[in-house]
């Protein structure tokens, strides 16, 4: 059964790009346009993996990760950050919040797929 991934990004083009590249690799993609919406959709979608941007209006990526991890049912869900940021400080902060990994934009579709399978086989 194909894995379901929830992608959270405030940019529609980024959401569509993710959907196009990952659907082609056999994943089922759901999307949300900011952290708050992402948190709502978590309960509804119950994804196998959450991929989130960092810089978003209405609850940024860090806040979203913390909020997701605060819910017992999502403690084991892998979370990947997909951001143009790459400072070690931000990565450490994401890690502390509960992220499983960090992928820097722009992404290569094949590499993204490999990275995803690394946490969500």
């Amino acid at each position, binding site marked *: 059964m194909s894995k379901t991934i929830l992608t959270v990004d405030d940019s529609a*083009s980024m959401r*569509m790009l993710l959907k196009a590249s990952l659907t082609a690799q056999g994943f089922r993609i759901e999307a949300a346009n900011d952290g708050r919406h992402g948190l709502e959709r978590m309960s509804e979608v119950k994804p196998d993996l959450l991929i989130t941007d960092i*810089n978003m209006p209405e609850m940024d990526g860090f806040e979203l990760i913390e909020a997701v991890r605060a819910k017992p049912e999502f403690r084991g869900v892998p979370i990947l950050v997909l951001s143009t940021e790459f400072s070690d*400080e931000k990565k*450490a*902060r994401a890690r502390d919040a509960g992220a499983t990994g960090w992928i820097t934009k722009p992404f290569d579709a094949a590499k993204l797929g490999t990275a995803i399978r690394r*946490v969500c086989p």
Partner: protein
Amino acid sequence: MSDDLDDIQAIFFEECAEGLATAESGLSAMAAGDVSAKVIAGVFRAVHSIKGGAGAFGHVALTAFSHRFENVLDEVRAGRIAPTPGVTRVMLTAFDILSDHVAASQGTKPVPADDAVLAALDQILVDGGAPDIVAEPMAVAVVAPMDDDPFGFEPVVAEVESFDPFGFEPVTVALDLLDDSVAEPVPWTVTFVPSNAALANGGEPMLIVRELEMLGGTVVAADLSRLPPLRDLEPEHAYIGWTLSLPGDVEEQAIADCFDFVAPNSIVEYARGVVVPEDAPVAAPVVEMLVATPIAPPAPLAVARPTAPPPASSPAARAEEHPEPVRAGEPVAQTIRVDLTKLDMLLNLVGELVIRGSILADRLSPKDQERVELPQLSRLTREIQDTVMSLRAQPIRQAFSRVPRMLRDLSVETGKQVILETIGETTEVDKGVIEKIGDPLTHMIRNAVDHGIESPERRLAAGKPVQGTIRLSAEQKGARIFVRVADDGAGIDRARVRAKAIEKGIVAADAVLTDEEIDQLICAPGFSTAETISNISGRGVGMDVVRSNVEALGGRVEISSVPGKGTTFTMVLPLTLAILEGMIVRLAGQRFVLPLANVIETVQPEPGQVRPTTTTGEVIELRGDYLPVRRLTRTFGLADNDALTPEESLVIIVESETAGHVGLMVDTIDDRREVVIKSLDQNLHPIRGLGGATILGDGSIALILDIEALVGPSAPLTRYTPKGLAA
């Protein structure tokens, strides 16, 4: 996929436009003195998003430029560089170049020269934007001894170029000392001891082991020494470590990649060498292990370290360093994106509903209408229709957003100083209208700066402030939108306009003209009073183009001017392009819709008033003038053409851009009403003069006449579409 990608890219460019608008209003606010964290964060996020998308779509120049712009914004956001007027000025220039880069990525402009502004941005990073602001904290961070740092902040040194796009933390570095004499690559030995918390954050160390196995690895030892007695075992803790052997031909990077998402504080080692003996103390502390592990010569040197986050990431330090940006009340509209075709489908369906409603009303007696609550149903339907219309509406801000930039450019070109005042930019207008008023608006602004606002010297001489003011406003009145461009310049020089019009043969030398008529001459084709062809107005388009563009939208241009006080141009536009006010006319028993915007007057011809000519067919004599007359029944080849004499018909005088006033002969006028425009399917052969269709109250179809195509000499075929978006 490539089509998809184009679609997605188109959305990306829309986002760029929104981002640029946000960035510009933020930077303008900063220039005006509002340097609140909220404003700066908004600008940062806009530029950041453009960078992200640009990278994804492979726009190298745009990515590179936005990245360097973002670097400065990030420093300003973090409070390390003060947003002084000087810094803000550089950022405004950078913004202009960023807009040009976006345009270049779309292929609408050449790639801009950005060296100068990049140098200025880099200079800001070096000196904080002004010589008097010493970049103390930055300098100290690099040179000062670490003990002085209250947060134990560790400067990041020289690791930037080894940045791994996927890595959470730089992992183990293995030095490969093999030389050419070694024929067979020595197998890898990989040791992986997940940290205790490796199962937190959705991590699963076994996945890493499996991935190593996929590379051809074999687990040669499992270290169970940390495994506690069952009663102490925490199900969410990791206790087991592994040693694996991998074939020598596996690339080092492939192994490193497996540890992309390894949990912090895990032990990861990999080196070429023989397999560690089974009883090796794998779980011993790292430093000891390095000493204790016997490694066969030529000894590959393994440098291992726990992947601990730098001390800088202690929560207290971070909280101090990066206070949470305030997010409440940000001026970001809460929106969802809907495919426009879905919206138009909805609009069409609601249109049908309205029509079915009127059919019902036609068929039911007033009493029956009441009985089935038809009036209530109609009211609801109308409300739904209004709501759906409003969904297509967008703030006119989008059309206004490029004006500040343009004014800055114009100020530089002309040496005139102009202040922009914007009023009513939240006024909502149909998307189709917004897309089409950009060009007219641009010309009106150019015209106002070039011809309206006087030079600084002349303004001073006239006792006016040196800076001219252009007020850009939008307001809705009824079903019309009024967009005004008002300047406080010299006003229209009517004597000169009149002289010019006579010189150009636009009016007769002895014509008696009112002030309003003289003002309107500005919009006459071929009219230009600029004494020198300036860079601005002399681009081959003038106010006549503005007028024809606006009229093509079903609007009109009004001009009012007070000598010495200024001139106001007003575009009066329809709220929507999906509904048309039309006159229902009948031709040989069929009904057609004639757009009311084109109609000047209707005439019931007297005998002899319509007469044949040898060349153009027929003319109508009207108050001493002769206007050409078209019999539409002939034009469309309807069966019983010429069944009626001119005296039994009506002549509707319409105005067209290309052909001026023309009379159209129709059998009769049925009604005047708003109709919902339906596009003609693309699979229907286009017929000149028919622009679309609508469904009337009785359910019958009426075709909508396209006056320009009908009476113009060789006007291109156009189609009305409900979207009003036909390019």
